[in-house]
Structure formats: C-alpha cells, structure tokens
C-alpha cells in the first residue's frame, strides 16, 4: 500500500471504469481518491498472516446448483426489450462495432 494515485493513474482508472473524465476534474478526483485510500491503509497494521480471506458470508453455503431446466419467469421478450434505448425487429440496435 502507501502508493498514492497520480493524475495519470486517475486517467487510467477512468479508462478501466469506462468513464469519461474531463481534464479539469482529474486533480480533484486524484485528491479525493487518495484521501479515501489513506484511510483504508490502516489495514496494513492488522496481522493477517495465515488468515483466509472471506468473500461471502452465507452460512455453510457453497456453490448452489439447480437442475438444467428452462424456467418461465413470466416476462416476454417484448417486455424485456421495452427499455432498450433503440430497437428494431425485436432486437437491440447498437452503434457500429466494426469500423
């Protein structure tokens, strides 16, 4: 830890996050993100040798499986499509992908 985020890191993070960030916002974001990271760096003080990480807390539950059957959720294709910003012929229309 103890590595602070630079302006270039902010731009890289924005790209990883698929967020457009104006150049004028970078310095402010850099300051805010570092402030938060400084706080979480207290975790360095905690001895975690040989401690297994916890990713989920469902008591005793491992991977849940179900039989491989089609389940009717009672929602039609038209209903699922109605929120698409653009649609045509029962499909979602997207901007050109291949230039």
């Amino acid at each position: 830890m103890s590595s602070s985020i630079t302006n270039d890191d902010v731009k890289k993070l924005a790209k990883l996050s698929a967020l457009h960030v104006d150049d004028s916002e970078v310095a402010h974001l850099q300051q805010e993100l570092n402030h938060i990271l400084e706080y979480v760096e207290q975790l360095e003080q905690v001895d975690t040798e040989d401690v297994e990480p916890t990713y989920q807390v469902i008591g005793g539950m491992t991977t849940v499986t179900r039989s491989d059957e089609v389940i009717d959720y009672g929602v039609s294709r038209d209903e699922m499509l109605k929120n698409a910003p653009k649609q045509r012929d029962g499909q979602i229309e997207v901007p050109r992908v291949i230039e």
Partner: protein
Amino acid sequence: MITISEIKKRIADGSSSARAEIEVALKRAEEASEFHPILAVTRERALKRADEIDTALKAGEDVGPLAGVPFIAKDNMLAFGAPTTAAAKILENFDAPFQAEAIERLEAAGAILIAKANLDAFAHGGSTENSAYGPSKNPHDPERVPGGSSGGSAASVALDIAPFALGTDTGGSIRQPASFCGVVGMKPTFGTVSRYGVVAMASSTDVIGPFAHTAEDAALVLDVMSGRDAKDSTTLPDFFTPEKTEKPLRIGVVKEWMGEGVDADVKARVNETIETLRSLGHTIEEVSVPHVKHALAVYYVVVPAEIASNLARYDGIRYGLRAEADKLENVFTRTREQGFMPENKRRIMIGNYVLSSGYYDAYYRKACQVRTLICQDFERAFGDFDVLVGPVAPTTAFRLGENTDDPLKMYLSDLMTVSANLAGLPSVSVPAGKSNGLPVGLQIIGDCQADGAILPLAQQLQENNS
C-alpha cells in the same frame, strides 16, 4: 403514528376499506412533498388493487395478513406503476418488466405499494444528498438529512405516509436513516429476503428490510418477505420466527463503539436505553470486538470492488440512458459520465483500483482477510452473549450540505453499521430517545439467523422505554 394492526383492525371492522386507506396514504404523500421523501406514486395501480382487495374481502375471501395495508418501496426495487430509477439519471425512465420478489410477496399478502422512495443514487451514500432528483429532508428538522441511503423510506414512515416501507442495507442504509428519523429499521441476516429485482450494489452484503414504527410491525413484514427464492441463489430457507422475549438475555455492549468518535449525547441516550434493558432483567456486560475498528476500512475496499463490478452493466446498450457518440466506446464512457452521480464514479474508480493488477493483494485480498477476523470476533462474542448493542450512528442527523464536500466524512456515519453487513448478521435500529430534539437509535445485533430474537427484544424495549 400509524401501525399495521390499526389499519387491519379498521378494515376488518368495516370502519375503513382498502380504498380509503390508499386514498389517505396518497394524500399524505402529497402533503409531505416539502420533505421530498417520494420520487413517484403508483396511484392508478394502487387504487385498482385496493378496489380488487375490497371486492375480495366483501366476498369473504382470505386476502392475506396485510390486506389493504399501504407501503412504500425504495426506488432501487423494481415495481410496476412507476419508473424504477435508483435515483440515478442512467435509469430515469426505466419501466420495470417484472417486480422485485419482495414486493411480489407483499402484494400476495394483500399489501399495496403506493410510492417509490428517494435514496442516494444506487444506494451510494448516507444522506440522500446523492440523489439525482434532489435530497429528502428530515421530518424532525427540514434543514437536516434523513440519513441514507434509504432516507426516503425512513422519512415516509416517520411522516406517517404508510405504516411500513422497504429499504436496502449494504452498510447501514436501513439502520442509519431509521436512527436519524426515529423509526424502527431492520437489516436481516444476509440471505433472508430474495434480492431478485433489486438494483445490485454490493452482492456480498446487500439485504432488503423493513422500516416501521414498531418492531412488531417490522417482524410481520419480514415474515411475509423472507424465505428461499429459486430466482436468488443466495437466499436461505425460511427460518424467521419471532419469539417473544421471555427469559433474560445476556447483552454485550460493544466497547469499541462507546469510545472516541461518538457524540457524548448519543452515548448518554444509548446508555440510558441499556439501563432500561437492565431493568427488564437482562444482564449487561461490556464486550470487546476488537477488529470492528477496522470495519469501515474493510467496507470501503470490499464494497467499491463489488460496486465497480455490478455497475459495469450500465453501458447504455440494453436499457436506460444512451448518450449519442461517434464511436461505441464513447457511447459507454459518455453514457456513464452523464448517468452516474459523482459518488457513483468515485466508488467505481476506487473499486477498479483495489481490484487492479498490482493492488489486488494489498487492498482487496487484505480487506477480505480482515473481514474474516471481524467475523471471528463476532463468533467469539456470541459464544458469551445472546445479543450485542451499541449506537447506530456516531451522531444524530447532520445538516444538509454539512458532509457533501468530504466523502470520507460522509463515510464515517457508517462507522458502526458496516460490521453487521460484513459478517452477514441481523441488526435492528430502535428509537432510543432524543438529543436536542433529534432522534437517537440503539443498534441491536444478533447472531446469524437470530432475527427472530432481536426484533422481539426491540419490541420489549419499545414497550418499556418512556
């Protein structure tokens, strides 16, 4: 103060009807507009359902334990009759194609959804000030926040628009606003209520729970919503049975939450409430849960990581806002720039930072290891105690704008609530008097699946706390 049992009684004895109750609730929602707890009402659908329920009741049919009772849901829960926005511009006109399972179960029990409540966009925040549609205001003082992120739900119950409301709690988003607004707010054990149809924030801690005036009402609502759902593989088989507090309980007061950083007056109210518990015959002892002092740091690594992943789906393609741009990649980045609030963006960026190559071990894995230590601390504490108590939040409701310039300061209001989420434990906020006219909440935490023990204890406290 309106309770579920009063409404049920009025409808049962014929002095009221579902329609009359819904009309009153809708009128109250309108009258409360200066506090802005509501984003949209589901008037047409609610009145139609009320008429159907009245007809069924007249025909002598069993409509369910909540027949004709109005309720409000946080607007990150998919529902018919109004848009589901999560208080974000990216979902401004989202018209839910199906309803959240929790809402479906309540409707099947006869309850009627009348409105969608305000929240911090995507439930990121502790004040509702991150709502893209403007903040809600605290019913006890309109210059103060109602808390968050489920601030609109808490305020709706405090304002008596409906006897209960639903919220979601990822790090305190039910309990902290319940504390700020002076109502009961219950965060159940992780996996108690299906999350199908709820806008995901952090999948390892998100839970759905009720707000009500009494713990008894909260228990009734939880009872209806809880249980396994094939559409949510993280749900537990139904275990919830409220059991009246009859024998004295061993109550541990969490030492780490009664020290520095907590307002003296808040501590005083909490201590007085603990004395009430003692006078009821419970044994009270101090207990140390040492790693909870790092819980907020763990939370602000783990939760942003999960947020970054869950919010990756908002790309402007399948639903929601789509910004026009020359290239596909710019459609993504511009849509997300316009559709998210600044706090959403901060959390997404922090999340991607702690998950990125070179930082994963130092931040994300480390935080998950400390999470293990927190869980182990609680396990030990529940070896000696039936329940644990402490304050809900370090302060009473703060002023609008007071914490908006400093994200970290805003995060600190979650200091004592995030631990229960990280460990998956049930926790309820119950009113514990006032400080300078503003409500204070006592937090009661139970062991995993002890939801049926902490709510009756909260009820016992409410009946005996003057």
